[in-house]
């Protein structure tokens, strides 16, 4: 017992390492679940990266404890097992510090978006390193002043500031979470944050006790072994419960919870409970679609919108119509429900407005800046200018080609057949668009789940090739 307390390799150590490995695997599964099982496309932006960094920091924290407290027995000491790397750097700025900083960044984002109703003034990739600075400073101090002994334990006097730094980081988390506690979030953001705070506080308390015992009483073997066992187990449980993706990716966390309906693609509109939109005039003698009518009036009709969207998607201009639809859905959320409005607004901004967004729309610089720098995310006319520009773009550039396309012919046939009460014909192999003769959709951002080909002029093509 005596030697394994110093060199590592006690049975309890192996048990603790096994448990921490299991918790790490469970953590990875939880974070990857929505992406793998429900085939949600990779989402860009700080939301995804914050979750990824949390997983990375959790891993660092666990491994740093395993190595620095000598859970595993190695034949000889290697250079990479240096105390300073693990105890000072990986446990601190790259482990616990990074983990809590991520949650603080998430709470900060939520605070600005839902309380201040504007996009956070400091970008996350600037904010995160900023709040990590105290950790980096502390690690540098410990490293340069050589405050760790051979067994990676700190001098007694230094334990207090080190512990304070750990506890100190829970305070801003509490502060931001308290500021947003009155918001009725649609997803589990606040609940997750409080849970994280509770777990962090409890863990810090247990760590302090175990750590102090481990550091101070270096000579008592059973105390060493048992205290480090408790330390590792607590950390394993902490990282698992602390992790959450709802604060940064509410839609994804919603998807991961809906295990019963794996095939249903959850849109933000559905997740927020916005009912399906659009008139559907199935009866009546008046023609459903009149090319002379203004496009914005026509697009209010769901069937027309679907047909126009299919046409636009076929010539790689679909983002305009998708944007119209989602802004239309936003318009259905009542003004006295700012929380839902803000969710939808934020989602639309990340998907359509931000530079490099997956379905970025073609709008002017001024319009884009107007949206990104707004002081009220719940404002009813936030997307008015963008909508205006895109409707003009669609009217002048897309609409003309649509009227002479097969998509419109199909729509007309469908309407007239419905009016006559007949069955619809199946229009396979006649997808004609004056815009494109051959579109291959295998890498289509608009239809990631199917690799369909829309080919036209098949009979003509065969004579030419």
């Amino acid at each position, binding site marked *: 017992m005596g030697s394994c307390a110093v060199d590592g390799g006690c049975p309890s150590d192996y048990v603790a390492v096994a448990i921490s490995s299991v918790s790490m695997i469970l953590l990875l599964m939880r974070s990857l679940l929505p992406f793998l099982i429900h085939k949600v496309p990779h989402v860009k932006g700080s939301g995804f990266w914050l979750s990824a960094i949390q997983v990375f920091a959790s891993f660092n924290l666990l491994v740093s404890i395993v190595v620095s407290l000598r859970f595993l027995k190695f034949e000889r000491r290697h250079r990479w097992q240096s105390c300073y790397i693990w105890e000072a750097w990986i446990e601190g700025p790259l482990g616990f510090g990074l983990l809590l900083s991520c949650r603080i960044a998430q709470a900060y984002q939520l605070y600005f978006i839902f309380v201040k109703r504007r996009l956070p003034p400091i970008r996350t990739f600037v904010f995160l390193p900023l709040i990590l600075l105290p950790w980096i400073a502390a690690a540098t101090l410990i490293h340069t002043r050589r405050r760790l002994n051979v067994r990676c334990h700190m001098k007694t006097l230094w334990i207090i500031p080190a512990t304070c730094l750990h506890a100190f980081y829970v305070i801003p988390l509490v502060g931001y979470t308290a500021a947003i506690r009155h918001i009725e979030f649609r997803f589990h953001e606040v609940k997750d944050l409080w849970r994280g705070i509770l777990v962090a506080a409890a863990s810090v308390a247990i760590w302090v006790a175990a750590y102090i015992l481990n550091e101070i009483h270096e000579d008592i073997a059973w105390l060493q072994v048992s205290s480090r066992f408790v330390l590792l187990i607590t950390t394993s449980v902490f990282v698992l419960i602390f992790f959450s993706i709802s604060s940064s990716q509410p839609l994804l966390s919603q998807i991961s919870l809906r295990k019963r309906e794996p095939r249903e693609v959850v849109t933000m509109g559905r997740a927020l409970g916005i009912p399906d939109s659009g008139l559907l005039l199935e009866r009546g003698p008046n023609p459903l679609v009149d090319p002379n009518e*203004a496009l914005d009036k026509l697009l209010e009709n769901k069937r027309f919108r679907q047909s126009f969207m299919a046409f636009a998607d076929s*010539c790689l201009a679909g983002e305009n119509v998708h944007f119209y639809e989602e802004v239309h859905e936003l318009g259905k959320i009542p003004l006295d429900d700012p929380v839902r409005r803000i969710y939808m607004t934020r989602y639309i901004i990340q998907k359509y407005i931000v530079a490099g967004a997956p379905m970025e729309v*073609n709008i002017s610089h*001024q319009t884009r800046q107007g949206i990104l720098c707004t002081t009220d995310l719940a404002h009813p006319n936030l997307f008015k200018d963008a909508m205006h520009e895109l409707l*003009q773009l669609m009217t002048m550039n*897309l609409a003309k080609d649509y009227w002479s396309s097969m998509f419109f012919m199909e729509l007309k046939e469908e309407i007239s057949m419905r009016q006559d009460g007949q069955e619809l014909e199946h229009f396979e192999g006649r997808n004609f668009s004056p*815009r494109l003769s051959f579109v291959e959709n295998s890498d289509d951002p608009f239809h990631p789940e199917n690799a369909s080909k829309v080919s036209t002029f098949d009979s003509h093509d065969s004579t*030419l090739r």
Partner: protein
Amino acid sequence: MLSVAFHTMGLLCSRHQHHDEAEIEENTQAAEIERRIEQESKAEKHIQKLLLLGAGESGKSTLFKQARLRPIKLLFQTGFDEAELRSYISVIHANVYQTIKILHDGSKELAQNEADSSKYVLSLENKDIGEKLSDIGGRLDYPRLTKELAQEIETLWNDAAIQETYSRGNELQIPDSAHYFMENLQRLSDMNYVPTKEDVLYARVRTTGVVEIQFSPVGENKKSGEVYRLFDVGGQRNERRKWIHLFEGVSAVIFCAAISEYDQMLFEDENKNRMLETRELFEWVLKQPCFEKTSFMLFLNKFDIFEEKVLKVPLNVCEWFKDYQPVSSGKQEIEHAYEFVKKKFEEVYFQCTAPTRVDRVFKIYRTTALDQKVVKKTFKLVDETLRRRNLFEAGLL
């Protein structure tokens, strides 16, 4: 081809060969000729995929319109008949309203922010007209351009403040066709107005997504089976992520660069200079792995605007051209400036072309996409280059 024929004839006419040997050799030669004829006709009937690439407002769609206006045999689509010309009336009227709105709002902004604000303030009698036209320009549904409205727009256009604002046009997003449409307002507002081909070429619409036409150029050899598929795309940043879908099997890229835009900022990012953006885009396109064997035709476009501008606004306002030194004036200076810009683009081409790709075709053309004669000539040159390359690839040259 001809040399093969002569050689064959020589062989066939020869009498001094041994019968058996001659027969075997004859058959081999005949098979060889057959194979080469087949290859050549296949090369001629080859469908060539051409892409029009370039930054926003570089002239891609105007060239595309020119391709449709030319007397060429269009496959599956119609050229510009009267109905199509008429369909541009709403676009042209929209351009007029949008232009006057940008000018009016621009003058207000300059009047607020500039130190010397008085010269951007509209005269008293034109203020109401200005507000009314700005309001119309902000609508989705524009009214038809009547004589009265045209008169009001002309009055506003002639206001000193608006002319001052127009001279600062590079800081605002004023379309290049502004002057042309403003000078032709009376004709455009006529009751029976039918746009001319020139009007259609000047009409400005941002392209979103991808448009394609297939055509067969009519040349001296009318039996030519050459078919071109020409693709037009949007040039703004958000549109460029769609380009990748078109990059397979491209015979030639026609890259449009508007050389008159060296003092203007992007529509989608007013902090970025258009010429610098074009350079970066050109570099990106050149480095694409799909374009290893693709011919590059660089169209240095908007030469007409460049000619006028370069004598008033020095080239070195653009960071890329900061080492430019003017040498003279007038026509000589224009030519000197043009050669400088051309050399800069050539430098970029050779910097971004790996040694393995050095044999791909690269040609630079000076164009004004609005000029029907110039474009017709340029397309002909492009056609010749591509045919020659085609035959070369098939091993016939």
